[in-house]
């Protein structure tokens, strides 16, 4: 789950102060939070004079014990900003654990009432829960990013020795290290196949890490769908020809663009077309078509392959999952290709649908919100960023 923290701690505190000021008819508010050393620090403020810093004071410490505390100008140990006469400190507690204190201030008029305090206590109970949720989300995001970054670095480090080993093995297999016996040939072919698989796995993990950590990818912009599909098909045409599969594209007459990264959008179509070729027997067809439906652009990859059994459907996008018939026809496969496709599609605000019949074939349809592009290619400057 990337970018889950749509609610930041800062915005929770700000909304909490705004609501508190409204319901208690206050002129200013501040929130002090408990730091690691048990000290209160001013985390947020609203309506207070710039030269006033709401540092920890006696009423705050009392409020931390769980009860509202009132303060009036002139009271010993209480510092109010100039022109303010009343203060009310409300504890911010979550399951009896103090998180901090909410302060509301009035310039003049009557002091805060016990009814004000009750309403604010109800509000801070909600606020404390929201604060905890925001902190939890931020923590989750940090962990997710750290995990992705680790995978990214680790896979780069893993790639290098694999490609070197593969390069050396290929030399042996081609006889550059002298003639081989049939048994040696067979063994080296197996080593080579295993290395190919490892390389695939590492590449897929790298893609998955990139799809989950937006900061690892290049910046998003308008990407022409026709060109992206074209690149994917160009890359895979040799493989289709090798397997005697008819790979055709029915491009769309319009130039349609999607808000994505070129590499990410290409990866979606490469994976889908690659799957089509992989799971379609020789002599079959893989057809890529595309078009527009209102403000949506769709791309369909249809094959005449082995199909997906109904019991495999719910697991299709799970990491490392491979349908039993897929394993049977093709020993090599990481089970990450469709996971990557789904993550990328969702990242670009799209949807993916699949229809399949065993023995007849499979059709994947991806749909994205389209953005208007210039007639010749895509003009990044002219296209407005869509709402996220």
């Amino acid at each position, binding site marked *: 789950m990337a970018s889950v923290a749509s609610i930041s701690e800062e915005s929770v505190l700000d909304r909490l102060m705004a609501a508190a000021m409204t319901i208690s008819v206050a002129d200013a508010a501040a929130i002090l939070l408990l730091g690691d050393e048990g000290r209160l620090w001013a985390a947020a403020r609203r309506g207070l004079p710039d030269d006033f810093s709401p540092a920890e004071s006696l009423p705050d410490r009392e409020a931390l014990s769980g009860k509202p505390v009132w303060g009036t100008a002139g009271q010993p140990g209480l510092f109010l900003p100039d022109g303010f006469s009343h203060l009310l400190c409300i504890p911010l507690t979550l399951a009896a654990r103090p998180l901090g204190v909410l302060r509301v201030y009035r310039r003049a008029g009557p002091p805060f009432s016990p009814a004000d305090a009750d309403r604010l206590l109800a509000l801070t109970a909600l606020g404390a829960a929201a604060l905890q949720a925001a902190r939890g989300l931020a923590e989750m995001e940090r962990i997710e990013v750290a995990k992705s970054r680790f995978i990214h670095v680790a896979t780069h480090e893993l790639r290098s020795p*694999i*490609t*070197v080993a593969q*390069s*050396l093995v*290929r*030399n042996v297999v081609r006889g*550059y290290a002298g003639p081989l016996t049939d048994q040696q040939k067979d063994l080296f072919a197996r080593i080579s196949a295993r290395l190919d698989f490892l390389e695939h796995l590492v590449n897929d993990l790298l893609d998955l890490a990139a799809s989950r950590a937006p900061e690892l990818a290049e910046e998003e912009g308008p990407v022409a769908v026709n060109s992206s599909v074209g690149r994917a098909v*160009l*890359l895979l045409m040799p493989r289709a020809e090798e397997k005697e599969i008819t790979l055709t594209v029915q491009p769309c007459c319009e130039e349609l663009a999607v808000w994505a990264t070129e590499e990410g959008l290409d990866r979606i179509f490469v994976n889908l077309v690659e799957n089509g070729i992989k799971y379609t027997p020789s002599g079959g067809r893989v057809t890529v078509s595309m078009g527009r439906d209102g403000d949506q652009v769709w791309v369909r990859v249809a094959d005449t392959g082995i199909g997906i059994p109904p019991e495999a459907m719910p697991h299709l996008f799970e990491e490392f999952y491979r349908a039993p018939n897929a394993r049977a026809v093709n020993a090599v496969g990481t089970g990450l290709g469709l996971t990557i496709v789904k993550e990328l599609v969702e990242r670009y605000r799209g949807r993916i649908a699949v229809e399949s019949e065993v023995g007849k074939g499979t059709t994947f349809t991806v749909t994205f919100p389209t953005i208007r592009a210039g007639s010749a290619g895509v003009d990044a400057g002219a296209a407005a960023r869509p709402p996220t």
Partner: protein
Amino acid sequence: MPDKILIVEDDPDMVTALRMPLEANGYEVYVASSGQEGLQKVKEINPDLVILDVMMETTTAGFQVSLQLRSPDPRSEYAPYRHIPILILTAIHTTTSLRFGPDEAYLPVDDFVDKPIDPEVLLSKVRALIEKSRGQK
């Protein structure tokens, strides 16, 4: 006189993988294990082709070498070697490699070979580049 090929690559095993098919096909192979050493050896050997890894002591060391060798400045100390074809080693596994083509303005190289190295692909690219540069001279 056999054609001279300079391999600029810091991984000795990758050097072996490149060297075997080249030597088996009669090329004279020289090796430099850093970008700096590579530039030095270009001047010493005046090779017929340079094979360049991108990521060495820094992630773009190879690009730095190719930029120096292809410097448009006529006073550059590498100006006499500007014509030497450059083959770059990449480890790009996506369609990016389709755009990562030989483009003077973008990256001054003549062609690229994907890692892992396929000896036959390597040899055909080496042959084609040397022939092409002969024709231009």
